[in-house]
């Protein structure tokens, strides 16, 4: 018993010794790295002291440039509209940003506009959740089973190139309500990118990691959960973000159907009523909401990918 514990202590010392070698002359890279990477807690402390300063130094100027680029475009547009610029492209009937801004102010003061947005958000939410759940399940099945792939792939190849607008007649004929037709069209738009990216990610599974997991006693389900899905996650997340973007522009097509609400409907309706500023408000709202939702998807998924961040970068 005594000799045993002594042996253990000796080994412990030896181990501590090897791991904490000072990075002196000709130090092994191993020792260097352990010295330079002090335990993670300390490191994050040092970093969290100045994130704002770091942002200003590294990202600040770049965001400034991006904002300036947009401002320049708006200024050009204002000039073109005010002076009735017409040389092949005609700005005579295009309301200036100032006019659009005033119209937007009026819309924001009322209630209708928000109802349109809410309806669209609701449709996108329903369609997107269905597309993500079904898309990931189908994608994993296809990536894991040749059978599933052979059965499903022909449908995807055939249906994917069909643009959302082309589905409108069928959607109206097949589905009971306007709402369900619009949701269906939006759903289809989001579905394919999610499926294809999931398949791609699953097929990239690292065989060595699967073997490591098997030799550690993992079952097939455990391998799916702990190796295949996390490995496919970067690709799946990319698919989710693309799917969100596609969902929004499919929604616009779908809302041609609707006679009631929705930001797509708002835009089409403004066109028929010749309300030019409203058309532009509708367009920009769709663009803004699409971008915002895509950003939310990326941010929401980033905890799933935090292992990819290396060292200080994020």
């Amino acid at each position, binding site marked *: 018993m005594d000799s*045993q*514990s002594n*042996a*253990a*202590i000796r*080994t*412990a010392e*030896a*181990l*501590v010794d*090897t*791991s*904490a*070698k000072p990075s002196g002359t*000709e130090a*092994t*890279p*191993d020792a*260097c*790295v*352990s010295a330079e*990477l002090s*335990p*993670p*807690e300390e490191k994050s402390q040092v970093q969290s002291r100045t994130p704002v300063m770091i942002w200003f130094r590294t990202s600040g100027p770049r965001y400034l440039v991006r904002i300036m680029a947009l401002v320049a475009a708006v200024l050009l547009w204002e000039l073109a509209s005010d002076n009735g610029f017409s040389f092949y492209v005609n700005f005579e009937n295009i309301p200036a940003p100032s006019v659009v801004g005033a119209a937007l102010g009026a819309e924001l003061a009322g209630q209708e506009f928000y109802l349109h947005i809410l309806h669209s958000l609701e449709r996108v939410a329903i369609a997107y959740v269905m597309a993500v759940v079904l898309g990931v399940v189908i994608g994993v099945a296809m990536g894991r089973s040749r059978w599933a792939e052979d059965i499903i792939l022909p449908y995807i190849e055939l249906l994917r190139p069909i643009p959302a607008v082309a589905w409108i007649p069928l959607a109206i004929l097949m589905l009971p309500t306007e709402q369900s037709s619009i949701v269906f069209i939006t759903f289809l738009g989001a579905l394919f990118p999610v499926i294809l990216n999931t398949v791609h990610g699953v097929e990239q599974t690292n065989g*060595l*990691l699967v*073997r*490591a*997991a*098997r*030799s*550690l*006693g*993992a*079952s097939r389900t*455990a391998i799916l959960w*702990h*190796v295949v899905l*996390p*490995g496919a*996650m970067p690709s799946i997340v990319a698919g989710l973000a693309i799917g969100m973007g596609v969902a929004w522009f499919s929604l616009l097509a779908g809302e041609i159907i609707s006679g009631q609400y929705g930001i797509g409907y708002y835009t089409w309706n403004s066109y028929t009523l010749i309300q030019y500023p409203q058309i532009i408000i509708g367009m920009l709202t769709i663009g803004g909401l699409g971008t915002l939702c895509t950003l939310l998807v990326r941010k929401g998924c980033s905890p799933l990918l935090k*292992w*990819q*961040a*290396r*060292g200080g970068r994020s």
Partner: protein
Amino acid sequence: MNETLMNDNRLAVLDHSRTRAKSGKPGAERGRISVRDVDIVFDTANGPHVAVKNANLAVRPGEFICLLGPSGCGKSTLMNSIAGFVPPSSGEVTIDGEAVTEPGPDRGMVFQQHSLFPWKTVKENVAFGPLMAGVGQNEANSVARTFLSLVGLAAFENAYPNTLSGGMQQRVGIARALANYPSVLLMDEPFGALDAQTRVMMQENLLDIWREFRNTVVFVTHDIDEAVFLSDRIVVMSASPGRIIADIDVKLPRPREQSLLTSPEFMALKRQCLDLIRQETLNAFQQQNKAG
């Protein structure tokens, strides 16, 4: 205070490993490997390719053997058949009398590189085996911590693998394989991708750990110094098709230290292996030239 706690913890682990070892088969030690008349043939585009030919190998429980041979001679293939990844085309592989049919947690594997789960922290990687064995999350975590301190990486339990150096990653890999208390540890050129100094440190580290565990180790390498320094026995394989052409006892005293590398006994063993390997490497080149 902390130090003694850690040591107590480690002793508990080792005791645990002994009782588990005994519970496997009463009276018998675990980790006896027997490879009998094994041929391994792969179907390739150019027809069948014999990777291992008529291999016979008996490894006693607690023995440390090295498989040494030129590149492409079938070392990994033979080891993979012990691991249960590659079924022998004929012959039989048994562990403690039971035929190997699939990989299992009784045979820990350490791969050459990049085999940690990159999305799991160091601790989660090591806790994975115990979790798969049905141990609760808390116990799995404490097993993981124990084995991480065994390899000197307790401070990095929450780091992700891609923030560690190659040597540190391999130590995590060793801790992960050991956390299942395997009776056999299979290591396929685990230090092959490391620089010379780190490799030497890792070898000493490994021997320290093995001295406590005393499980059976099969270690694949083509570094002769490494084979002589580590093993009780060196099994030399011929160029393709891989046959076992020599079985050399390494009767150097343990514990071993770097000073051993310059001793006459070490040199003599090294020379013996060198001659065998040189001949085999020449053969391998000639064959590859013919094939190409």
